[in-house]
């Protein structure tokens, strides 16, 4: 327990809970902040409205299963179909996790306690990952429970559901790492929101155009690679490779093989590295 200040006041001699506890406390505090818990009602509107929108397809899906005995959106394609909402959630809430500490320059205060940069960044990424995962996994689980209750003909799609949950976790980690890395480059919340959504729209709006261009001129093999430029389709391609689920791209197939999984790992490493470098610099100020 090394602490840099001791100005002669009476010492604390209660139990010391240690670094793990403080990291966990920071993660929980950040997670509450993502959903606006412990903040005024105005901060709760946006996250909970987006959570509500995410649940609509599941409820419709259950209704279709109950009334028409047909499946709605497949579990494996849920994140891809709802990608705009997930991206808005990420863009709107990622700056709320990182921006205030940077703007009010309280980072040195955190780091003067036994919390290292790695633990600080880890806590923030964990909080955002859990939040995005809850956003995707909640509706998925509701739809699955609905499927069990409705008792569809044939066995329940348990394998597809579990695969989708695993991929939702991977997707959340990728999105959170990238979202926080982008958002942490500015201490202003508005600019952080704008930069995250700009990068997302860049990938989502240009990828179909690039695919169509290459596909029209007969380069279908090259065109497939375009899908990997968008995080949602990238994770879907990994799911396609791992679990053999049908591809949920707008049209066409994904490039086969473990290359997309490799790309995913590389991108995760890049985002983590960017975060580490950014916070090494921010902590020095």
């Amino acid at each position, binding site marked *: 327990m090394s602490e840099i200040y001791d100005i002669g006041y009476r010492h604390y001699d209660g139990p010391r809970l240690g670094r793990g506890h403080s990291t966990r406390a920071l993660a929980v505090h950040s997670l509450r902040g993502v959903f606006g818990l412990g903040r005024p009602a105005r901060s709760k509107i946006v996250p909970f409205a987006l959570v509500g929108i995410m649940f609509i397809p599941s409820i419709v899906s259950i209704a279709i299963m109950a009334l028409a005995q047909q499946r709605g959106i497949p579990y494996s394609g849920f994140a891809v179909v709802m990608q705009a909402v997930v991206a808005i959630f990420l863009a709107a809430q990622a700056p709320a996790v990182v921006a205030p500490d940077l703007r009010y320059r309280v980072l040195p205060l955190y780091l003067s306690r036994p919390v290292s940069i790695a633990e600080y960044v880890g806590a923030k990424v964990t909080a955002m990952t859990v939040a995005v995962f809850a956003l995707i996994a909640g509706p998925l689980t509701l739809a699955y429970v609905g499927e069990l209750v409705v008792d569809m003909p044939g066995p329940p799609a348990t394998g597809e559901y579990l695969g989708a949950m695993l991929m939702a976790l991977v997707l959340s980690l990728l999105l959170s790492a990238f979202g926080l890395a982008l958002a942490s480059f500015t201490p202003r919340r508005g600019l952080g929101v704008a930069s995250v959504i700009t990068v997302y729209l860049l990938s989502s709006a240009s990828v179909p155009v690039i695919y169509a*261009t290459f596909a029209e001129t007969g380069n279908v093999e090259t065109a497939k690679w375009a899908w990997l430029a968008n995080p949602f389709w990238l994770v879907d391609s990994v799911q396609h490779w791992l679990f053999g689920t049908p591809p949920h791209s707008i049209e066409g197939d994904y490039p086969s093989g473990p290359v997309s999984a490799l790309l995913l790992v590389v991108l995760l490493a890049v985002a983590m590295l960017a975060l580490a470098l950014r916070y090494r610099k921010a902590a020095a100020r």
Partner: protein
Amino acid sequence: MNTVVAGITYRALLGRRRIILLLLLPLALIGLAVLLRLFSADDQSTTVLLMKNFAIGTMLPLLGLIAGTGVIAPEIDDGTIIHLMSKPISRPVIAQTKFLVAASLLAVFAAVPTYVAAWILVGNEDGIAPGFALGSLVAGIAYAAVFLLLGVVTRHAVTIGIIYALVWESLVGNLLAGARTWSIQHWGQAIAAQISDSPFFQADVSLSFAIPALIIVTVGAVLWAGQRLRAFSLTGDE
């Protein structure tokens, strides 16, 4: 119009890394146009699709959001707006100046790249390039006004703006035809369709509705933003 306020606002928006945000999407648009040209997919229908979906559908609202809220929201967030408001400059003039700055940025970063991208693809055929350039200029001015007002009214301006542009204009607008009547980008498309006579491009909103709507929304938003600034109270962040 106050030149000092305008100068400060330009510096705040274009300084340091922030200009990258404004350049990213226009460069991507021109890059896509060059790519389509290289692979000789440069027919009119592709051009109209790229213009409708990427230039006016994605790039314009986002740039409008960045420029429109960017001219005033960071100052309100920081609290430095108090220095500006305590000067003997009328508050509506501050709002109008900031609106003009945002509108001029949109002309440079949205309308010009739109023209260049369309020109790369089809030249000046059937007035597609000038049509979309004018459409995105007029819609960009309206976006600047609306998002400036949003920046004055709420601290969550960027988030609400994104939800309007992505959920209402894109998602709902694609599903329900009625929602397109209340969408700034479709008003811009109505003007683009008036100038261009390409057979591949039809607007969903009539010109007789789009022009009054654009004028009312732009003027109304700027005036209202000025009024809001007149009785502005600085409240603490959450």
